[in-house]
């Protein structure tokens, strides 16, 4: 009996090991996989306290299994994070998931899941995603990258059936600019306390997408 129980638990755990990827994540991954390629006109607005930049436009081109390409005629700050609308970065390397329960946002329940890449050379160490179970898509994820810090991506979708988000909001930490005084600018009244402050600032990028040439599988 005891031996049977030990075997049962062992098989049970093995079965748990076989269940590494959450089914909802798999469904989302499958949906994302249907996208072969697309182009989009992106409007980029940046909200960082020490930067004033007008809204800019750019064009992005995505092809499956390739990095997203960005084109612009004007000068544009292209965020390193947040343009990954197909969630390619999240799913490109093998990973496991851990169920973190649910979270209520605006009276709606969402599922929280950790995505942990198993490959050592993966770009990120852990991501926490918030899943809209009703429409089988991710509405928010927080990702801790190895090189580019951590950031939070919030996604808004135009229609219930949309796979790709129409609006994305990326929030991240950024260090204040430190430059010598009187460099290309007026000698303003320098707030020494503010200048000496080491606190990194938070920045937010607002992206809105207008998709064209969308090709599904």
């Amino acid at each position, binding site marked *: 009996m005891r031996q049977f129980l030990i075997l049962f638990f062992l098989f049970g755990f093995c079965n748990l090991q076989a269940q590494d990827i959450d089914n909802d994540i798999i469904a989302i991954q499958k949906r994302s996989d249907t996208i072969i390629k697309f182009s989009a006109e992106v409007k980029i607005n940046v909200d960082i*306290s*020490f*930067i*004033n*930049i*007008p809204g800019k436009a*750019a064009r992005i081109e995505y092809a499956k299994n390739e990095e997203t390409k*960005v*084109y*612009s*005629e*004007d*000068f*544009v*700050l*292209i*965020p*390193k*994070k947040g343009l990954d609308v197909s969630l390619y970065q999240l799913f490109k390397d093998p990973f496991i998931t851990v169920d973190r329960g649910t979270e209520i946002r605006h009276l709606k329940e969402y599922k929280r899941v950790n995505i942990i890449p198993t490959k050592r050379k993966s770009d990120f160490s852990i991501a926490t995603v918030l899943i809209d179970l009703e429409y089988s898509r991710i509405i928010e994820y927080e990702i801790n990258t190895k090189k*580019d*810090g951590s950031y939070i991506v919030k996604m808004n979708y135009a229609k219930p059936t949309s796979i790709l988000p129409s609006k994305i909001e990326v929030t*991240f930490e*950024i*260090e*204040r*600019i*430190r*430059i010598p005084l009187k*460099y*290309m*600018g*007026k*000698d*303003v*009244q320098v707030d020494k306390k503010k200048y000496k402050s080491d606190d990194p600032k938070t*920045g937010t990028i607002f992206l809105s997408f207008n998709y064209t040439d969308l090709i599904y599988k």
Partner: protein
Amino acid sequence: MKNLIFAEVYKLFKQRKTYYAIAAIFLIEIIILFSAYSQGQSILDILLDNLSQSFHFEGNLLNGNLLIYLILNTLWFHLPLILIIIISGTLTSEYKDRTVLSVMLQPISKWKFILSKYIVAILFTLTIVLFLAMTSFLLSYAIFGKGDLIVFIDTLNFFESSGAYYRIKYAFLFGSISMVFFSVVSLTLAIILEETTKTWIAAAFFLIISNILLKVNFNNYFLDKWLYVKLTDTWQYLFYFEIPWDKIYWNTSLIIVYTIVTMLVGIIIFNKKDIA
């Protein structure tokens, strides 16, 4: 009065030193343009260093607009220095050659004579700034093209090309008013001192002191609002993200008042002086 003004213009452009001055200004502009171009990339790299962690940069910031902006920053000392030499020379040379006396022996009113010199000084200054603006735009855009302008004034401000052009254009306009003030001061010093070298030294000293005091933080509301040294860099406000037009109009009106007062003082002194 019109005849006196035309005569002053004629005299100014009949002298070789006027053309030497224009050539010098143009040469300085060329030198600044190319040194700004070679320095510009390192300035940009420093400014954008923190941002490069979070952003890629698409597009070229080292463009004509940035170079004109760098020219603007450097020229507001070099340009008035040359202007004060030419403008004060329009009177000190007449004292030296005693043509002031010859003129006063004609049926010419003293105050009209000196007022015509002031008017021509102002017109010449504005013409030179216009020449500088046009050549800057022409050379910078032709060689380096247009593009977004990046300016650091407490915050990092990015201006789209059309917006940058608009701001730079008005910066030249408001900057020219500061230049007129320095020209008028140099002519007034010429009235008081008469002698060429003394006038140059006094006018250059005035310019240097103004530049030094501009950087000093008086922490005094009255001085910061009314002292003329705080008004001469009004053009910089054009590069705040939200242009403080009220402040610009106030500063410009005040410096125009100071210019007129300086002119009046010069006219009164000249009128009272015994020319012989």
